[in-house]
């Protein structure tokens, strides 16, 4: 039994490859994204209310460091092996150091479908992981000496739709608590997987539209778009295990590490590293890594986490 949301993704890819005129209207895509972001945020916030925040601080810090470190691995590979220009390598590295909310949503659905559980503060780590890679990317492109409009960058990141809705949902869930949100459950939680299905339909169409640029930019990007998430997921698994997370939490951290941004980071890079070609990074992130993670990666990373815990004990 295949999860129907994956079938929606495949339908999107197929329709896109057949050059169907099918598209989600932009307003609907925005609507669907907003609902997912708010729902994920609220889910996290509700659970967060149940535990003392201070206990999470070490995890938050460790994960933040991972967000700084991952792009530092990606950059030299892209710049020296892949022979990308400095700006392009930095921008792609930032995309892969940050996270994708869409991938996270699919992972949440995957865990639910398979009756698996994970640490409930994962949405918080999602928010935490969005940002460090952006800073690293900018510094990699400009160097420490470069003139960077940090104010603009900060506004772009923190006032961007994604963070506002995720954090806003988190706070709402936190304050309202599990009973508080009962009245809005039908829209935000009961419809979650249906809305996710529509989202994945559009993501499939978008992924398919990247095929022609893939051909243009060649094999290295394809290899990188698969190898990098594999590497990052291993880092995520090790970190999750080291932090004493459950198998589910370890898997989710691996998935976060493996996912590549396609909303927050492109917007920030376009403003702060405009000479980087956005087609390159979006082709890799949306055309290769997102489909790879959704179709193959998520169960794989879960296996990796489970095996690690079994072998090392825990």
């Amino acid at each position: 039994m295949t999860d129907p949301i994956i079938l929606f993704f495949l339908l999107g890819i197929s329709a896109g490859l057949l050059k169907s005129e099918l598209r989600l209207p932009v307003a609907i895509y925005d609507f669907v994204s907003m609902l997912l972001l708010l729902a994920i945020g609220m889910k996290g916030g509700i659970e967060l209310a149940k535990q003392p925040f201070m206990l999470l601080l070490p995890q938050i810090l460790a994960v933040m460091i991972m967000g700084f470190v991952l792009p530092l691995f990606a950059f030299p590979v892209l710049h020296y092996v892949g022979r990308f220009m400095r700006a392009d390598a930095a921008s792609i590295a930032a995309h892969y150091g940050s996270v994708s909310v869409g991938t996270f949503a699919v992972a949440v659905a995957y865990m639910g479908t398979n009756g698996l559980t994970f640490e409930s503060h994962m949405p918080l780590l999602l928010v935490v992981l969005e940002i460090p890679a952006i800073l690293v990317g900018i510094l990699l492109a400009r160097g420490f000496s470069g003139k960077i409009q940090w104010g603009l960058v900060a506004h772009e990141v923190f006032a961007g739709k994604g963070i506002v809705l995720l954090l806003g949902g988190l706070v709402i869930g936190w304050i309202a608590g599990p009973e508080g949100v009962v009245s809005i459950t039908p829209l935000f939680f009961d419809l979650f997987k249906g809305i996710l299905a529509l989202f994945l339909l559009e993501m499939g169409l978008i992924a398919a539209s990247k095929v022609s640029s893939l051909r243009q930019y060649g094999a290295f990007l394809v290899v990188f778009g698969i190898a990098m998430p594999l590497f990052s997921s291993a880092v995520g698994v090790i970190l999750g295990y080291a932090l004493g997370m459950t198998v589910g939490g370890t898997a989710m951290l691996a998935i976060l590490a493996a996912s590549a941004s396609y909303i927050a980071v492109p917007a920030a890079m376009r403003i702060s590293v405009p000479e980087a070609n956005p087609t390159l990074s979006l082709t890799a992130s949306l055309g290769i890594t997102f489909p790879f993670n959704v179709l193959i990666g998520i169960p794989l990373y879960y296996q990796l986490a489970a095996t690690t815990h079994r072998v090392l004990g825990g």
Partner: protein
Amino acid sequence: MNENTGTLITIITEAPLEHTITRDIERLGAHGFTITDARGKGKRGLRDAGWDASSNIRIEVLCSSDIAEKIARRMKQRYYMNYAMVVYRQEVSVSRPEEF
């Protein structure tokens, strides 16, 4: 009718630049602008508006030819290199010239 010629300068560019560019335009002395959403194709490829970041806007500014010249220059200097952008100008007759 009190009528006058003015310059209409049209800028077609990436949607996320909306705020930066309109700020530029106002700083250079124009008293207004009109924006429509657009999609298109140019040397930076297809921009098909399916996606916020991949959509275009079309900014029109009615102003004096001097200000139009300044705007065109500023666009060239600040955005041409790195962003999808096309700029063109026309003379038009405006029915409410006192303001431009």
